């Protein structure tokens, strides 16, 4: 591995100053579970690594009123071990329990999964259906970006020079809401999604009608995608197999997968349909309280 300088930032301001360097390749490190292998393979050769794990704000994991805040350096296990979060954000929990194995989950972060901007990043479709917002610190102050606009291309994000993702905010889902993330992989753990789909549903008080719905798909486009059309075909309809089928077709038409070592275009198109229906069925069962995480 190429030599680099290690800087241990203690504040957001310090990290932003270090990252805002026009002459050197500077990268933040949180869990490092993707960054370190890529550096070892020579795919990334930063001059300076800025450790952001010792910045207090980036370690906040809190529910204040109806707002969940996940600091960008919070490791995955802290999120799924928090019962109040597992109950309210099931799609996110499905997703982060799928990232790596236990040892990876001891280090890896949702912030890192998002900043890697892998088309297959498991947490990203889940964050999209939870309507998460990204809080970004930068040299000119703070800005907020909806999570579906964060990834711009494989491995590329909306972050500019000197900008740091500090927090992910998610509003508490309303009553009668359920969500789910599911994916297809050849083994049960420790693998990268061939295709992944997240869905959320909000039902009417009498649970006979869908009032709000979101579907997001992963590993079938250059970035994880929010499929607005799939949500729109569901709203106003009854929560039935027929409705799930319509949403699945909409999700399939939004998918533009490639053939690679993990799967073919045809397989991925097929999987988007299957996984959309499964995600909606589970989201529905969770919305009516008949299925735990």
């Amino acid at each position, binding site marked *: *591995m*190429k*030599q*680099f*300088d*290690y800087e*241990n930032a203690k504040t957001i301001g310090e990290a932003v100053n270090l990252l805002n360097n026009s002459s050197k390749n500077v990268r933040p*490190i949180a*869990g*490092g*579970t993707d960054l*370190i*292998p890529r*550096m*070892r393979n020579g795919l990334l050769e930063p001059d300076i*690594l800025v*450790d952001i*794990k010792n910045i207090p704000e980036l370690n906040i994991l809190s529910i204040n009123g109806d707002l969940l805040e996940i600091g960008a350096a919070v*490791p995955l*296990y802290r999120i799924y071990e928090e019962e109040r979060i597992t109950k309210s954000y099931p799609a996110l929990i499905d997703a982060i329990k799928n990232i*790596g*194995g*236990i*040892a*990876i989950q*001891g*280090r890896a972060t949702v912030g890192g999964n998002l900043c890697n901007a892998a088309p297959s990043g498991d947490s990203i479709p889940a964050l999209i259906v939870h309507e998460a917002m990204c809080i970004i610190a930068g040299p000119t102050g703070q800005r907020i970006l909806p999570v579906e606009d964060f990834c711009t291309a494989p491995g590329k994000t909306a972050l500019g020079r000197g900008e740091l993702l500090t927090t992910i905010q998610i509003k508490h889902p309303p009553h009668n809401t359920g969500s789910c993330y599911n994916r297809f992989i050849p083994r*049960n*753990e*420790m693998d990268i999604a061939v295709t992944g789909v997240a869905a959320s549903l909000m039902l009417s008080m009498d649970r006979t009608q869908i009032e709000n719905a979101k579907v997001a798909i992963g590993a079938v486009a250059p970035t994880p995608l929010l499929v607005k059309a799939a949500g729109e075909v569901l709203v106003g309809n009854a929560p039935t197999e027929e409705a799930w089928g319509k949403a699945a077709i909409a999700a399939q038409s939004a998918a533009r997968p490639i053939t690679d070592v993990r799967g073919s275009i045809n397989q991925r198109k097929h999987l988007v349909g299957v996984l959309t229906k499964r995600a909606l069925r589970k989201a529905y069962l969770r919305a009516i309280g008949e299925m735990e995480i």
Partner: protein
Amino acid sequence: MSKKKVSAKINGQPVEFLCEPRQSLLECLRDVIGITGTKESCNDGNCGACSVLLNGRLVNSCLVFGVEVEGREITTIEGLADWQGLHPIQQIFLDRNVVQCGYCIPGIIIATKALLDREANPSEERIRSWLSGNLCRCTGYDKIVGAVKEAAVILAKEKGV
């Protein structure tokens, strides 16, 4: 690039060492500090041979830089046995002839400790899922899982639950 001084607690002992920022915790343990029970295999976070506990949490030491453990506590396979003898997990692995080539075993025992420190009576499914990040190329998983189940019973008895 100058070396950095790192102070940490390893297996209960305060340790200071010097390392380059690019050296992984695994390299620091084996090549700088000289405790070689923790093994390198894939060096990529897939195989779990380099598993250690970092502040009580299971991690792959190949995916942690040495400079990141300043002020942290690390437990390696060397930290399990004490003057009275082997740790019960080590003893049951020995008694049941679990070990084939043995290369994965330090990591698997550390991962098992991380599980049994948290859950007294994990199901077989839970054990297999927990150990999914630890590969055994000899594929001796059934004996490993059996020993983990037995270790859970022994440790629960020791704790009097």
